[in-house]
């Protein structure tokens, strides 16, 4: 079991493709009232375009061995924000450690290569993410809607989503 710093050092050592930086929780600046700091867990930032290669690299590295893709999801932080966050959570069965990964996907052109080649587990998650946020996963073998009806309009988990007034004649008021 490794802590986050050790994992990050190892990531740098193996030159994991697309690795940008690490973001750790920090205390807020007591002088600056607007800066409240950040709580929670530490994560690494990666390039979305290299996400698949990154996953393969950390999967195949013996010291990291992140062999399970626990979660793949996205977050729309704000209506004003220009990016979606792509959140990935990896789990290593052998070592028992986790890694949280974040990638910034521009809202203007939300296209990410599919990660199904690295982990088959990504398949359903990508389908859900695609319908909920409108992020296209290029190369997903079955890019149908998974939870929403096939003809659903809009992407419900976006912050600027407007709830439909009616659906097939059913009033949603």
């Amino acid at each position, binding site marked *: 079991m490794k802590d986050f710093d050790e994992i990050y050092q190892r990531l740098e050592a193996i030159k994991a493709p697309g690795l940008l930086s690490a973001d750790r929780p920090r205390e807020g600046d007591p002088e600056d009232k607007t800066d409240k700091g*950040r*709580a929670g867990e530490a994560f690494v930032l990666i390039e979305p375009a290299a996400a698949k290669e990154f996953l393969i690299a950390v999967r195949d590295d013996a010291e990291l061995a992140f062999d399970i893709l626990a979660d793949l999801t996205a977050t729309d932080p704000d209506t004003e924000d220009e990016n979606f966050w792509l959140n990935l959570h990896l789990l290593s*069965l052998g070592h028992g450690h986790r890694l949280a990964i974040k990638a910034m996907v521009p809202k203007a052109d939300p296209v990410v290569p599919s990660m199904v080649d690295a982990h088959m587990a990504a398949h*359903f998650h990508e389908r859900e993410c695609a319908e909920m946020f409108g992020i296209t996963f290029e190369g997903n073998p079955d890019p149908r809607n998974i939870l929403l009806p096939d003809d659903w309009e809009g992407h419900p988990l976006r912050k600027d989503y407007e709830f439909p007034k009616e659906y097939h004649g059913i009033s949603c008021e």
Partner: protein
Amino acid sequence: MTEINTPPEPPEAKTIEIPEKARTLPSGEREFMLDVSTSDLEVNMGPQHPATHGVMRILIRTDGEVVTGGQVHLGYLHRCAEKIGENVEWLQYLPYTDRYDYLSAMNNNLGYSLAVEAVMGVEIPRRATLLRTICAELNRIGSHLIAFGTYGLDIGAFTPFFYCFREREWMMALFEKICGARLTYSYIRIGGVFNDAPVGWLKEVERFCDVFEEKWQEYYDLLVVNHIFVQRTAKIGVITPEMAVDYGLTGPMLRGSGIDFDLRRDMPYMAYDEISKAGVYDVPLGRGEKGELGDCWDRVYVRVQEMMESIKIIRWCLGCIEDGPVIGDIPKVLKVPPGEAYVGIENPRGELGHYVASDGGKVAKRCRVRGPSFCNVAVLEKLLPGTFLADSVAIIGSTDVVIGETDR
């Protein structure tokens, strides 16, 4: 790359003269005979079907009794839990967590509470931790009882289902006494638990443990080692360890394939660190005893064994529980500092992950639920082709899917 079952190529269009007399079918097609030949039959298993344990729909293609392809269709029970999480206050989301995996609501409460606590960084009193553990493990027993009982039902054995419900009824009565609800508990809350256990409750839990051990032996003799049951489940739906890891399976599905991994032991949360170090319980693994490693029987066996391991954990907690407060220092209206956290806990079905992101307000920025069933059900499309129709029911049952959780 694994294949996804695409519908078969339509046969080459032949121009055939339809006789005048051919009647029109209700579907609008004209009835005529293309050729005397057999063709695959596409059947909708679900959304209303006894084998799908809810409103899941599996489109299966069969050649006689042999399934040649299957496609999972989800979303019939989609209730926008994640969107609701972005619209209600932190504590108000708690009742919604009861409702995705409605068979193990305690564990869902726990997962959500732990995720929010991870962002907030609050201290949980010792008694609350142990009460949480007892409730989560009791609920794990209840959930496995349903999984096992309904699996018997899938295979065609009715009676074990009722025996399982009898014990689960007692478990629900216990929960009713501690929190007032039988299914949607909302008991474990951010910072601790809602109520202290009523007088005599812990004694009754102990009695439940004693009786359950006897009854467990009956389930084992009645169904688990029954020759017909073994014949129906061994060597069926084999998930190899590599496949299990690739599909991101967790929980009994993963351990059924022989991979020794349990979040409670390997990434401990709450009191599990202590419990694991004390060597209170073992992690049961599938060993391919009756057939191949990772078959349906192994998965069922793991679940059945896990019930007994949970009993051991409960006994340990009952042994060292002391009086004390049951809730930490939590304000009435929660304000969670900005930040984000992902916490995965060992649900009866696998890793239940909650990813919560806060921007410092009263409402979550993102409240993501990683339901274990959602990930486990993905493997069905791979397992179904090449099995018998009856086996497909056995395989679906062995994934122990709860539709409330896949669709959320």
